[in-house]
């Protein structure tokens, strides 16, 4: 009897999805749908928070006051994105601190791109342009995600991401038309970040284990390879416009398809970074864990104080 009911509920659930009716926190949903969303949203939240570190690395060394302020504002936006996303995950019953502990234990993942170091100022340009650019490609379709709170959070986030992308591109453009040293700095940053940026879209469609179900549930609206292709098509002309060369000897435009064809992605490197063997995985997680541990006494004090105040009020 119970099983029949579940089947019926699942059928109605899928019907809503097919009709593009948003699923809201109090609605019935299959356990797998809930778990997939919690995994994806908290992974996304972690990426925003860990992503503050490589750029935070250059705030105190920004070359002028305007760049310093813009970079500070950008990193602050990323913290805000993290906050919306943790809240969206909480609507599904995932406690913020628990999901953060999963990040620190290595159980939860975050975007592999943030495991690469930021070595020069030009990296602030490359990250804004390529990483926020790739994030936009990934996130715009999620604005139409079947889960209401996630879709709405993405609408807010995407507006800010396009500002981030523009300021990054503007840094690169300024460097590219600057002194020979500046141009070399920009080219070096592009060389280092191009392939990791392509990897941000995740494994090829054939390898991606979650895609089919996520597409059916409208959690995902385009495949990894489709999004990656869109990104390449948009970005190649931008690089040409500012006179930088993409580090891919096989890159060519296919007149027949209207798309750029790109060389083979180094998937061995991708999986190594995902498994924790990227250049900065350990540093990033150690830093986040340390922030949480060193903030423990502050959070305890805030709780104790709130309790004291509440007790005094009711006394």
């Amino acid at each position, binding site marked *: 009897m119970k099983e029949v009911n579940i089947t019926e509920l699942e059928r109605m659930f899928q019907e809503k999805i097919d009709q593009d009716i948003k699923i809201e926190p109090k609605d019935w949903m299959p356990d797998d749908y809930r778990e997939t969303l919690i995994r994806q949203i908290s992974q996304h939240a972690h990426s925003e*928070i860990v992503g*503050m*570190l490589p750029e*935070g690395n250059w*705030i*105190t*060394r*920004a*070359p*002028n*006051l*305007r*760049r*310093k*302020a813009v970079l*500070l*504002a950008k*990193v*602050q936006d990323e*913290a*805000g994105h*993290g*906050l919306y996303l*943790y809240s969206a995950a909480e609507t599904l019953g995932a406690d913020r601190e628990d999901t953060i502990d999963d990040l620190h234990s290595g159980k939860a993942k975050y975007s592999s791109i943030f495991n690469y170091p930021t070595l020069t*100022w030009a990296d602030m340009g490359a990250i804004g342009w390529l990483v926020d650019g790739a994030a936009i490609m990934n996130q715009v379709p999620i604005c139409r995600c079947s889960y209401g709170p996630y879709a709405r959070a993405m609408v807010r986030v995407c507006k800010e991401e396009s500002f981030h992308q523009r300021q990054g591109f503007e*840094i690169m453009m*300024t*460097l590219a038309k*600057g*002194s020979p*040293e*500046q141009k070399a700095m920009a080219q070096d940053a592009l060389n280092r970040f191009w392939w990791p940026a392509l990897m941000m879209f995740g494994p090829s469609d054939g390898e991606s284990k979650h895609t089919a179900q996520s597409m059916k549930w409208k959690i995902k609206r385009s495949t990894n390879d489709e999004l990656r292709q869109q990104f390449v098509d948009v970005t190649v002309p931008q690089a040409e416009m500012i006179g930088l060369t993409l580090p891919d000897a096989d890159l060519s435009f296919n007149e027949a398809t209207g798309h750029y064809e790109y060389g083979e992605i180094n998937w061995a490197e991708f999986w190594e970074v995902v498994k924790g063997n990227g250049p900065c995985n350990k540093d990033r997680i150690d*830093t986040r864990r*340390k*922030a949480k541990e*060193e*903030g*423990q*006494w*502050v*959070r*305890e*004090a*805030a709780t*104790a*104080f709130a309790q*004291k105040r509440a007790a005094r009020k009711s006394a």
Partner: protein
Amino acid sequence: MNQAHVEFVLRIADDSLILGHRLSEWCGHGPVLEEDIAMTNIALDLIGQATSLLNHAATLQGEGKTGDDLAFLRFDREYRNLLLVEQPNGDFGMTMMRQFLFDAYRTILFERMQSSSDEMIAAIAEKSLKETKYHLKHSSEWVIRLGDGTEESHARIQESLNTLWRYANELFYTDAVDDEMRNAGILPDLSDLRQQWENTVNHVFQEATLTIPSNNWKQEGGRKGMHSEHLGYILAEMQYMQRAYPNMEW
């Protein structure tokens, strides 16, 4: 160019810049995400204030320099900030205590400076006052929360107060520059600045159950370019790009 006028603007500008720099060091390392956002926001306000003030100082100087030149190409001995704002972040309580002692002073200063005869200063003070009131609310709430929180937090923030108290006296430092500015109507009367500041501070410390240290070391020198050893490292980091790659657009 009026030397005292430039000097006066640099003192306020450098306080904002150096404290903004210190706070920005927290970015991504805060005790909770909400505080990462708050501290970044305050840093952003301070960098904004510093930018307006340094641009103004550069104009008053009339040597064709920019605010960026003043931020990135002056050496330690030419910096005019208080010793308090260059002190290391320490733990979160130390950062909040440093911020509170400073915000309590800055609120009064900006309130008064709104009536400066230098219209640019008056306008910057008016805008900055709104920001500083929020900073003071934030820092005083944390001082109270930590002071009246747990045993550990009380001990830690009391220790921060003991450490930083020696720099508080410098908030009220005055010399011939201030006299000249007051005579010119650029700096309004501040004779009750200390009294007003003590009112705020005593009130908050009482709520926070904190004790003002009995020793009253008067560390000063920042206003004359005599800094602690910390400032050199701040500038080495902050000025790295401009020193390594001079005369370029970024």
